[in-house]
């Protein structure tokens, strides 16, 4: 077996791990789309906002310090405490719930019965708003996020796979962070499935996803369900924000993972949770392998920016509703 084969396998495995992170973001999209028909462009910015808030709470930053200093000429920046990671995460989760309530109260409630495109534009407006608001609140410099997740190559996997190859093969290199992320994503999906199958709220949630009016007529509160769904999407954004933030720092580019999640959605179908997972894995592996086999040697690299979109585009031409999406039936 050649070294190229092992390297290729390693790229494959790493693509799988990246794919899990894509699925995590895509999951947030799918939940909101299923239950309210809103294509929530702000999901990526929500992840950024969650990560910013987490770092800010953990380091005890004074919110809006920059603004306060500009207006009053003061010099405040930190409260001077350090919160334990777990407490900070719980507090951030609380902030995301508050955010969900505010979004429902001030945006969604006023936009019921508007065409999809208007709702989509509103979430883009929300994304702009939160992007500026997050920077205003916590400052725009790149921050380091550390909640105690191990990072760097996983020695155990490297040592235990070394026997597969010859003398010049030292085992597969996998980042511990990616493995932790994969485990958490798995747990998250499992708990979501359990929640939606076996709890009362979960059943109500599925009912709303099926048919708004029928759900309303049996006494399910649409507003409450929307708050629940946006809160769950907020939690998912928090998890995604923690994982991506620990990996590459909390900064503006974090919000661009939303753009990475879109082709995942197209591939998997906007309405399918398994679709988001499988789509994420296909895109993660696909773009890494394409870059490794064709992009870097022949096309000058950096194909990861568009490959996922092209793959999804070509795929959709043959199956317009995605892999697992509901069949699109149109009537005049």
């Amino acid at each position, binding site marked *: 077996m050649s070294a190229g084969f092992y390297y290729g396998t390693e790229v494959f495995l790493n693509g799988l791990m990246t794919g899990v992170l894509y699925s995590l973001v895509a999951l947030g999209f799918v939940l909101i789309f299923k239950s309210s028909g809103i294509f929530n462009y702000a999901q990526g910015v929500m992840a950024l906002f969650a990560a910013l808030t987490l770092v800010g709470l953990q380091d005890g930053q004074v919110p809006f310090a920059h*603004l306060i200093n500009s207006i009053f000429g003061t010099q405040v920046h930190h409260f001077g405490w350090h919160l334990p990671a777990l407490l900070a995460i719980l507090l951030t989760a609380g902030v995301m719930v508050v955010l969900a309530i505010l979004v429902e109260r001030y945006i969604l409630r006023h936009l019921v019965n508007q065409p999809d495109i208007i709702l989509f534009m509103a979430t*883009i407006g929300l994304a702009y708003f939160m992007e500026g608001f997050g920077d205003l609140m916590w400052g725009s410099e790149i921050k380091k996020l550390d909640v105690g997740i191990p990072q760097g190559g996983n020695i155990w996997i490297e040592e235990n796979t070394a026997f597969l190859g010859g003398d010049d093969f030292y085992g597969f290199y996998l980042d511990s962070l990616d493995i932790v992320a994969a485990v958490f994503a798995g747990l998250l999906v499992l708990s979501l499935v359990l929640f939606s199958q076996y709890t009362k709220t979960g059943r109500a949630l599925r009912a709303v996803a099926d048919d708004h009016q029928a759900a309303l007529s049996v006494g399910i509160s649409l507003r409450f369900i929307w708050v629940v769904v946006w809160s769950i999407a907020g939690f998912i954004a928090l998890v995604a924000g923690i994982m991506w933030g620990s990996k590459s720092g909390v900064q503006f580019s974090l919000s661009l993972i939303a753009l990475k999640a879109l082709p995942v959605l197209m591939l998997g179908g906007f309405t399918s949770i398994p679709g988001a997972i499988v789509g994420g894995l296909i895109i993660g592996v696909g773009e890494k392998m394409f870059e490794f086999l064709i992009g870097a040697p022949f096309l000058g690299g*950096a194909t990861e920016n568009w490959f996922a979109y092209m793959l*999804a585009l070509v795929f959709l031409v043959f199956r*317009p509703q995605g892999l697992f999406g509901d069949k699109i039936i149109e009537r005049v």
Partner: protein
Amino acid sequence: MFYREAGDFKTTYADDSQTFPIKFDRYRYWAVLAFAFLVVPFIINDYWLNAVVLPFLIYSVAAIGLNILTGYCGQVSLGSGGFMAVGAYACYKFMTSFPGMDIFSVILLSGFVTAAVGILFGLPSLRIKGFYLAVATLAAQFFLVWLFNKVPWFYNYSASGQINAPERTVFGYAVTGAETQAWAVYLVALVFVVVLAVVARNLTRGSLGRKWMAIRDMDIAAEIIGVNPMTAKLSAFAISSFYVGISGAMFFVLYLGAVEVGEAFGIGKSFIILFMVIIGGLGSIFGSFAGAAFMVLMPVLLKNVMVGQLGWATDLAAHFEFVIVGGLIIVFLILEPHGLAQLWRLAKEKLRLWPFPH
């Protein structure tokens, strides 16, 4: 009192189907044109040209283009930035390969090149609909920007990867390059805007525009009454890209002069143009202008107030701008989902009855 049909008798079919059936509207239209062509060139200076007027004119063309596709034909596109890049790079290649060509034909040709690319990326619209299509057009955005970054032929193998507009003149006056005069640049842009807006207005109320609107309202029903969805959708993509391409070419040669593709034509540009169309009003040519004016003027105004008046740091002002733009978009969508054009329509209805509303 002034704004009404009464007493304005139409005696020919041409009279009856003109763009502005009300006399007052017609005079207002000619007055605006006269002001734009005869007064503004004498009072314009470099600051007003580059901060307000030129971006407004150029974005108006892009907004009309996207409005044709999204507002009239119902196909949401997030690839406008990429198509603007096609226009700019086509313009650059034509200018450097054929130095003798005049600037008007170069910009028009760039529009045709963009139209061809637009048809190519419009093909999936025959199969994909709604949000799937919106996301699919992002493929055009990312792929085109990557292409112009990675293939050195497009930027003539220049070391910086930038493209720079060489100098071109119209009647002996420089309109591109370093030594331009504000009024000359303004007039070139104005000619394009006026001609393209008139063409767009007439296209959208002709048979082609009716086909687009039928497709927008329900494509299957349109197909049943005999509208060919392929020609309707692809012509919308082609004409829309033509407009967007021309605006991209003008953005490059007249406004920026030097372009780095990821910075000038990134995804942010696509969103700004979409905002213009939504805020201005889907399916309205006037709305495209209103939306462009709103999105160009507001940041300038905010910056003047926050940096100039209050003396805040520019980065703080930039964050505030995001908050305000985002907030305004949401407020706008809640209060008036049909955009500024709808407010204009309501105002005209009120004017008809004024001063005796009952």
